[in-house]
């Protein structure tokens, strides 16, 4: 003969839990308390989210203080880009760095914000910015050229500090 012993399982409810009402009151009081807590909502157009240095917004080119980009048009970013979003055309220059990009385009419809371009860049010339407000009305507009990509180094200091600390 097999004896069946009734063991108490964790999911078995006790008497007070079985009559529902006290548990319901507990749940109700929880939501009532929540109603008076501060709200998390950020009212977007008026209040804007200010990300920290670790935020990966749209990739931009670093512009030195003398107005020249750091990029030497090695094409590594273009090579590593998994979404094939970057197109670089190199040319020679009289400056010390000898090469510069004549054309540097990022198709923001293709970009997946992975940050590989930034990771692979030997010159720290392409970094992810804090800019997350990207909206276009047609496909041509979504291809960002050098005019939109060049950002003065001062505005990117947060990200550059972050990269030097962790990369």
């Amino acid at each position, binding site marked *: 003969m097999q004896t069946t012993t009734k063991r108490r399982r964790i999911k078995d409810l006790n008497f007070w839990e079985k009559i529902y009402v006290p548990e319901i009151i507990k749940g109700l009081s*929880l939501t009532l308390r*929540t109603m008076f807590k501060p709200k998390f*909502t950020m009212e977007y157009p008026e209040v804007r989210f200010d990300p920290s240095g670790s935020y990966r917004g749209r990739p931009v080119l670093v512009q030195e203080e003398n107005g020249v980009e750091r990029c030497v048009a090695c094409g590594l970013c273009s090579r590593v880009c998994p979404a094939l979003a970057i197109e670089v055309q190199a040319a020679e220059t009289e400056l010390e760095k000898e090469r510069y990009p004549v054309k540097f385009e990022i198709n923001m419809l293709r970009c997946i914000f992975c940050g590989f371009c930034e990771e692979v860049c030997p010159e720290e010339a392409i970094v992810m910015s804090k800019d997350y407000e990207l909206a276009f009305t047609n496909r041509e507009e979504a291809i960002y050229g050098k005019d939109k990509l060049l950002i003065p180094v001062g505005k990117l200091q947060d990200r550059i500090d972050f990269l030097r600390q962790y990369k």
Partner: protein
Amino acid sequence: MSILEIVIVTLIKVVVVVGTMLVTVAYLVYFERKVSAWAQNRIGPNRVGWKGTLQPFADLFKLVLKEDIVPDNADRKIHALAPVIALLVALSTYAVIPFGPDLQIGNYNIPLLVADVNIGVLFILALTSLGVYALTLAGWSSGSKYSLLGGIRSSAQMISYEVSMGFSVAGVLLLSESLRPVAIVESQSGWMWNAIVQPIGFITFLVSAFAETNRLPFDLPEAEPELVGGFHTEYSSTKFAGFFLAEYANMIISSAFIVTLYLGGWQIPYIGKIGLSPLLETLLCFGAFLFKMALLLFFFLWVRWSLPRFRYDQLMNLGWKVMFPLSLINIIWVAALIMIFGM
């Protein structure tokens, strides 16, 4: 009063009641969204009008502008009829609920309810039961599996909850010895509210009211996750707005009905002893009725955003094995009170 005066006064009351009803429905939707937001640490609608107060009208406007889609398989006539039934039932039930004591203006003595019917409680129970036809017909005529399941659920749910609801009301009727809503309110003078005298009946009626209005935790006919909207899956535009309106109107009726049956209606305990002027007293009582109703409506919203939905078999279990015996116990309790204390 002459016949003409009676007709005019009644018409005014009808217009006022339906008007306030529709405005309350609109703002109930607004507060539903606000309460849901607060319960989830959000702010809620605040863009349309001051603090979002015009939001319900924007919602309604959007719904009316939408394309009205009827599925190919649908039974077109019944499909169109269902939301009409829902609205008709929701708006006509309010006629018999008293929202204040008699109002004295000059020589006129105006009772603050549209129709003082002797069988008011029966009328409300009958009409709200008719309301389930709207859901079942909507589910059946849509020609969609999900809708059909929703419709079937609503009728099964109605059968299991109407029983305990009826028995809970029987407890009230035993004490008031009348089916007239006004008499029921007057029988609860002082602190002799039925919610205090028969707490079990109050709880069973409250739970049944939730089931009757298809509100969470008993919104099985809608059940968004499993039935993608249930009976109103195939409804859009104005017809959907009809169901939407009816649901909230039903909530208002349920809370008004609960206030009438269990929370002393418009009565404020011992207000007669303060010695206010009759007009002020009437207005205060009217305010008390609205206040009690508002509290109950908040409770409806509050529960919706706190409790999860019951599973179908759990609902049936609760209805037949818990609520039904409890409502019977309540009748015995009330009968014993009458026997012993002769109340």
